[in-house]
């Protein structure tokens, strides 16, 4: 890219406001060079600086005795016992996935994997939380097809099982799908690698793939200076190479078994710039880079291009000088590039040289400390009035068929069948088998439970309740397999933060999440913020996606959701018949209305603790939390899971049947147990409401009053949508 004269207009093109550019001038004491301006613009971008969200994120609780590293590192780290730590994080690749669904999703998976293995953890599981436009929108199919292929294409090839996730559809995501990828890894708890550089004189080493002109600063793409010739060289969509990533994982883990690494950081957004600036900044040292040494894929790359390239599958390390050869041998064995591209200094500055010229020379402290931080105005989020009575237009069985077959509730087998979920040989609960995926830790009885959750329609109606609900549901899904919930990662997907109503949604969601995290002892240890998810001025539904992690001491104690014949069904929790924002209301009554179900955090905790205790005591054969679609959908999913029918008792006296069976009250679980009476007694002594629901038997789901529907018919309705829609 040809250098251009640095002017306030160019700064604006690079996404810096006049005030921000003024700050750049003050820090530099002169007009910055083209490359320097590029460095400031990416470091101070929303993506790297969290300038709109930082003030709010601080409100999230991040500590607990088992938290080893909270937010601020490449990923969160928690103690899972046996001298091991789980390392995990979730990250969005929303915009790239709309432009190029396959590569956008694939590189999203690649990026989050690097965040985890850069800390010394072997990745053991991937999850993906996906939101798409309405299925009737002609664009949606192509996006779904590409995203699912991309997630699978990358994860399957690197050999990390994809064990869970979620899929939602809503018109608000039509021009703005959400692809949130989560990776979980395991490391010895005393062998965690961090990114703070140390040791003046130590070599700065680049490993992985070569650098090309991939994904360079979006702002400059619109530059009027582009002509036909540069058009060909135009910053391009990043293409992922999972094969190289697999080699990079093996090479890094092999090197991490030695004592060669002082600090390590993946090159993610803003590539070499953010990795070198952050490593040096965190370690309070200076750094010198010689770009002539950077492995390059294309000819004639400029300093600007190399500093801003987002080529995939690259890492930056600081090594002990006497271990450089050991490291080089390992990377050469794995056929990866290895190059010493600089060294640490004591100047507190980043100095970038290329072809004999100093292309950038910036003091690191002010670059970090004077980064913009905005207290953007927030508008209060209005609450919807309570729903009045809503009559049942359909009857229970037709409503059940509609719900269990609708895009938001139907079987996701079409999706997860494209993801290798068994590789590693440790997957105890695969997708669809339980409320959380369960992955055993190789060589032990211990296991991790993993889930992602968010109900965006609740968040849109009441962001605070929605944020709370998302955290509570993640906690509930972990409890429902018998795991002890430990911590979450989050992915805050919102619209334009410059609009007060969007910032209001953000702030309220954080408030709700923070309250739930505190009440459930479920801190946030990592996360990601994705703003400006808008097309033509219309924002997405506020979507604070939550990735939850829990631990089981003995994988053999976990339960799935499949019914078995002869068991009693018990509902734990209270059914008030809450229809506001329920799927029944939307799919059956045709309304999106009312406030979402309130979250009673004390009840969540009490009910979940009881359920977990019962599971670990071996008194529960199957368990499923009650979420989207309500009680009858929950029971139907359990029946389909075990291929056994159930006979249900009457709704309690005084309740309205369709409200009872389809309401979406929180803090509830359905248990399948051998001895319901004993469970009811246990619940009573714990102060937890519980009631008998029915019994698992036969080949039909039989509702009170004797109406019944065969499992075969239910299954056909449940499994129809995806294959029919995608044409195979």
């Amino acid at each position, binding site marked *: 890219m040809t250098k251009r004269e640095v002017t306030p207009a160019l700064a604006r093109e690079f996404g810096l406001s006049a005030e921000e550019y003024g700050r750049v001038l003050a820090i530099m004491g002169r007009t910055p060079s083209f490359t320097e301006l590029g460095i400031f613009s990416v470091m101070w971008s929303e993506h790297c600086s969290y300038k709109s969200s930082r003030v709010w994120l601080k409100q999230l609780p991040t500590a607990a005795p088992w938290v080893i590293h909270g937010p601020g590192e490449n990923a969160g780290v928690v103690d899972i016992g046996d001298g091991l730590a789980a390392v995990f994080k979730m990250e969005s690749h929303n915009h790239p996935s709309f432009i190029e669904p396959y590569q956008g999703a694939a590189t999203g998976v690649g990026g989050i994997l690097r965040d985890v293995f850069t800390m010394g953890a072997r990745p053991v599981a991937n999850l993906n939380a996906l939101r798409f436009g309405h299925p009737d929108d002609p664009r949606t199919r192509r996006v779904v097809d590409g995203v699912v292929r991309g997630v699978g294409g990358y994860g399957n090839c690197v*050999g990390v099982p994809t064990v869970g996730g979620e899929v939602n559809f809503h018109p608000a995501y039509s021009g703005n799908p959400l692809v949130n990828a989560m990776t979980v890894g395991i490391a010895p708890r005393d062998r965690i690698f961090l990114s703070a550089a140390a040791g003046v004189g130590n070599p700065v080493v680049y490993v992985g793939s070569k650098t090309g002109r991939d994904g360079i600063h979006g702002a400059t793409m619109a530059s009027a200076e582009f002509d036909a010739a540069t058009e060909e060289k135009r910053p391009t969509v990043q293409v992922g190479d999972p094969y*190289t990533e697999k080699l990079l994982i093996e090479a890094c883990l092999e090197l991490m078994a030695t004592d060669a690494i002082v600090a390590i950081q993946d090159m993610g957004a803003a590539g070499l710039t953010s990795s070198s600036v952050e490593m040096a900044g965190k370690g309070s040292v200076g750094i010198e880079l010689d770009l002539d040494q950077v492995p390059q894929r294309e000819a004639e790359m400029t300093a600007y291009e190399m500093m801003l390239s987002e080529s995939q599958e690259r890492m930056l390390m600081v090594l002990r000088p006497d271990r450089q050869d050991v490291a080089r041998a390992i990377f050469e064995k794995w056929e990866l590039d290895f190059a010493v591209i600089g060294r640490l200094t004591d100047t507190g500055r980043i100095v970038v040289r290329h072809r004999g010229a100093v292309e950038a020379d910036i003091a690191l402290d002010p670059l970090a400390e004077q980064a913009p931080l905005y207290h953007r105005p927030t508008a209060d989020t209005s609450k919807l009035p309570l729903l009045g009575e809503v009559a049942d237009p359909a009857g229970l069985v037709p409503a059940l068929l509609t719900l269990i077959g609708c895009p938001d509730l139907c079987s996701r087998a079409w999706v997860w069948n494209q993801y290798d979920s*068994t*590789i590693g*040989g440790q997957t105890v609960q695969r997708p669809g088998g339980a409320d959380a995926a369960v992955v*055993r830790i*190789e060589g032990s009885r211990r296991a991790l439970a993993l889930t992602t959750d968010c109900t965006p329609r609740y968040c849109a109606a009441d962001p605070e309740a929605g944020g709370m609900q998302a955290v509570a549901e993640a906690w509930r899904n972990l409890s429902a397999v018998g795991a002890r919930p430990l911590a979450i990662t989050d992915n805050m997907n919102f619209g334009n933060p410059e609009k007060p109503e969007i910032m209001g949604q953000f702030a309220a969601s954080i408030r709700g999440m923070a309250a739930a995290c505190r009440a459930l002892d479920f801190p946030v240890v990592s996360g990601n913020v994705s703003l400006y998810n808008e097309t033509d001025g219309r924002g997405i539904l506020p979507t604070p996606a939550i990735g939850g992690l829990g631990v089981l001491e003995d994988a053999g104690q976990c339960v799935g959701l499949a019914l078995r014949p002869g068991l009693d069904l018990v509902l734990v929790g209270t059914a008030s018949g809450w229809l506001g924002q329920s799927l029944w209301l939307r799919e059956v009554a045709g309304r999106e209305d009312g406030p979402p179900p309130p979250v009673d955090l004390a009840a969540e905790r009490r009910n979940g603790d009881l359920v977990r205790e019962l599971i670990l005591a071996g008194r529960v054969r199957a368990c499923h939390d009650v979420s989207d679609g309500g009680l009858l959908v929950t029971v139907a999913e359990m029946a389909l899971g075990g291929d056994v029918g159930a006979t249900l008792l009457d709704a309690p006296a005084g309740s309205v049947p369709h409200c009872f069976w389809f309401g979406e009250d929180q803090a509830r679980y359905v248990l399948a147990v051998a001895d319901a009476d004993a469970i009811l007694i246990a619940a009573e002594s714990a102060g937890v409401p519980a009631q008998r629901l029915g019994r698992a038997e036969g080949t039909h789901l039989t509702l009170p009053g004797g109406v019944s529907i065969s499992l075969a018919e239910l299954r056909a309705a449940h499994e129809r949508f995806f294959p029919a829609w995608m044409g195979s």
Partner: protein
Amino acid sequence: MKAGVVVFPGTNRERDIAIALQAASGRRPRMVWHGETELAGLDLVVLPGGFSHGDYLRCGAMAARSPVMGAIRDFAAAGGHVLGVCNGFQILAEAGLLPGALLRNASLRFLSQDCHLRVERADTAFTRHYQPGQVFRAPMAHGDGNYFADPATLDRMEGEGLVALRYASPEGAVVPEANPNGSARSIAGILSPNGRVMGLMPHPEDLVDPLMGGTDGLPLFAGMAEALAA
């Protein structure tokens, strides 16, 4: 049984295979790097699943031409036993150690799901712990498992009893509905004429522990451990 597990760049199910071999034989297999050519002392060589060399160009194509394959060819010629699973099967076919080729799944999608396999030959070192006609469950995870050979080759293979495993319904019926990837004659696993080289697409190694939902795959490894006990 002394087993070697070959690791190509991009192989990713070597740990799964090692776990299954150890569960069955009590012995840790030796990991053999793709550049090695020394296989002396081994009773069994396993080529595990994965995406060797990214599976770029064609699945298994580049791995089939790597140095270790010459050694494996000699090892097989000298009567050694070789098992290729998934990518390993693709590599053996690309190397010409087994007939035919593995094409894209008929659905053109990666398929990760359980399938059922009917045992067509129970008199080999690999399958001796199953009964003839027995059906067992196995996970599968591949994009290119659609077995192809020309009709004459298929007829010859059937005649010589070289089909080891077929996709079937849980009840053992070999029907199109139970053929997940479009394989010719529902073929899931085949043998070399001397019965000492076997390739199969599914992953019995991922079903050897009740915690993972069953032990249907264990007899494969137990059978080899018994037959090849040194």
